[in-house]
Structure formats: C-alpha cells, structure tokens
C-alpha cells in the first residue's frame, strides 16, 4: 500500500544524508550519484547512477538507502540503477570537491575528461597546493582514484580521476 505521506523533496532530503562508503565526507547527493525519486502506484523508486560499473560501493549504498527509508517508515522502496546519461565527475559539486581536498584527496579537474588519460595533466597536491606532482600508479585503493606524490612537500596522495 502506498500512502502519499511523503513528497519527493522529503525523500530526497532523507537520502541526502547517506554517505559514500568510500569517501565518507561526501554524500551520495554531493557526488552526483543520487539522481531522482519517483513516486508511483507501486511505491518509491530511487534512481541512482553508478560512478563506475563495477563500483563495489553500490551494493552498500543500496542497502543503506533501504535501511534508512525503512527506519523512516517509507515504503515500499525499490532502487533502480540508471546508466544513461553516464555519470561524470563533472556532477561532483564544487563544495564537495573542496571537502574532498580537505580530506586529502585531490579532486578531479573541471570537465577535462578527454585529458584523463594524459598522464601529464595538472594534478595539484591537496596538502600544500603545489602543482609539481608525479603519477605513481594509475590505480589506487578504488577504481576511481590514482596514486600521486607531491615533489614539493613529498606527501603521497590520492587523486580522484576525471571520468
């Protein structure tokens, strides 16, 4: 049974509290994964767009959504993954990029995705801001990050790849 007790905005409000399991300072809304909430006669359909197709965090996020909405008494809930339009790092808000930097991850540059594969593209150190940095490994602990080191302050850091 669906009651119309909750509006789309209320549900979006609840869901905006859910953190990205891999970058817990950011929410799924800030990172651009939470796309929409549809209210139909079958219930509430939560529309997510995965960051990477094989992102292992997706399962955790789906469970977090179901658990949170169950606690709020919202139901029935289905989570739907939508691939088009494809997620891009351009959907990460500027405020979220700043949080990411403070957390120690160098955020992706603005809409320069075609350059994501050129190793020399400018990545600045999240600690000291120096642009004199060096790629150590194209892959880090997760598919979305690469490993760099700063030649100025010698700090190793992760860079969220432009995608």
């Amino acid at each position, binding site marked *: 049974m669906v009651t119309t007790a909750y509006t789309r905005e209320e549900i979006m409000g609840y869901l905006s509290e859910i953190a990205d399991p891999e970058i817990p300072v950011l929410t799924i809304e800030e990172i651009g994964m939470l796309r929409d909430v549809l209210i139909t006669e079958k219930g509430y359909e939560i529309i997510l767009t*995965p960051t*990477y*197709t*094989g*992102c*292992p965090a997706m399962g955790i996020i789906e469970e977090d959504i179901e658990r949170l909405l169950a606690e709020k008494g919202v139901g029935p809930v289905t989570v739907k*993954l*939508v*691939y*088009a*339009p*494809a*997620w891009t790092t351009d959907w990460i808000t500027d405020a979220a990029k700043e949080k990411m930097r403070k957390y120690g991850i160098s955020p992706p540059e603005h809409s320069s*995705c075609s350059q*994501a*594969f050129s190793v020399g593209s400018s990545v600045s150190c999240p600690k000291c801001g120096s642009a004199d940095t060096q790629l*150590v*490994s*194209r*892959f*880090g*602990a997760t*598919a979305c990050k690469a*490993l760099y080191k700063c030649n100025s302050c010698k700090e190793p850091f992760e860079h969220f790849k432009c*995608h």
Partner: protein
Amino acid sequence: MADQNNLFKYLLRLGDNALVLSHRLSEWCSRAPLIEEDLALTNFSLDMIGRAQALLKYAGEVEGKGRTEDDLAYKRAERQFYNHLVMELPNGDFAFTMARQLLVSAFECLLFEALSNSKDETIAAIAAKTLKEVKYHRAHAEDWVIRLGDGTEESYQRMQHAVNALWMYTGELFEADEVDAELIREGIAVDQNSLRPQWQEYIGQVLTEAKLQVPADGYMQTGSRKGIHTEHLGHILSEMQYLQRAYPDATW
C-alpha cells in the same frame, strides 16, 4: 521490433566477454609483479564484472524468463557461453596478459564508441559508460607493451612471443553471423568488421613503437559464436560456478 532472441544472444556475447576476461584478470590478484599492477589488473577486472552484470541483467530481462544476471553467469554450461576465445586463454606471463589487454581493449574502444550510438537505449547507455573505462585499460596496456617490447632482450622476446601467440585469436573479434547481421540492420549492433582497419592501424602503430613485429594474418581460430570453445573455458567455469553448482541459490 527486434527479434528478442537475437538481442538476447548479442547481449550474452557482450556480457560473456566481460565476465570471462574479468575472471582471468582476477587470477592475478596477489600475483602481479608489482603492487601497482596488482591494483591495476584487479581494477580492470572489477570494471569488467560491473559491465557483465549490467549486460547479463539486461539479457535476462530481454529473454523474459525470469533469469537474473547471476543465473546467467553461474548456471549456463560451456556450450551456452559466447565469449571470444581470446578472453578465456590462460594468463600466461605478464607480457601475454598485457598483450591481450592491448589487443582486446583497442577493439573494445572502437566497439563501445560505436555502440554508444546504438538504437537500443540500454546498450547505448552501458556502452557510453564502458567506453570511459576501456580507454583507461588501453592506455595502461599500451604503456606496458611499449615498455616491454622496447625493453631488455628478454622482455622483448616475451612480448613478441605473446603477440605472435595471440594473433590467431584476433580474427574472431571482427566476425559476424546472422545474429549480428539482423541487429546491424536494425541499428542495434555494430558491424565489427568495419572496425578492423582502425584497429589494425592503431595496433600497428603501438607495435612499431614497441619495436615489435606485426604478425602476418594467417589461420584464425573461431567458434565462440556457436558456443565452441578452447579446452580452457570449462576449467574457468568449474571454478567460477562451483558454489552455485554445489549449493544452488546459496546466498550470504
């Protein structure tokens, strides 16, 4: 309206390619020559398992018999798999794995770029997403093929040997049968043979830069579109499907 059975078969092919190569790459976990490579290869594997999941899920929906992506991955027999033979070949040494990555990801970059214009919206969406990932795979493989080909005498020998051994599995990538033909007519699939000149040009450039010889096109292996495989696929499936075969529908 596309013949749903053709579309189902086509989706299995795309999904199985990702699933089987993903499984192969996962075998490198904890065994790569450098920790950065361990991360890279398992990340590629993860991208592919995600792609397989999306494609097989859609295949199950198109088939309309209630099979999920897990049913399709774990409960089909060898002859019902349609991945290209090159995907199932054992990893060999690091040179062999990287040479395969180059040949396959160069093909996939062209394929998914073309499929991102497919008239089937779901295929187009998955292709657009995948394209971003396979470009990264290709860049990585290209670096290694050049570094090893134009490296020491031993690394050169191993890389040339790998390219030679893989070459007879590349012809199959560009084949088409009646399933392809029908879906090409409908604007859903891509004429893979039309991608061949670009693929050859790119591979030729990379191999030349790596000081490697481009093998001559000779006898080419085939069979995957009919579900005929090398002896290696059965061994992959016996490992990959073990749990669901021993304990059907087990979950955790």
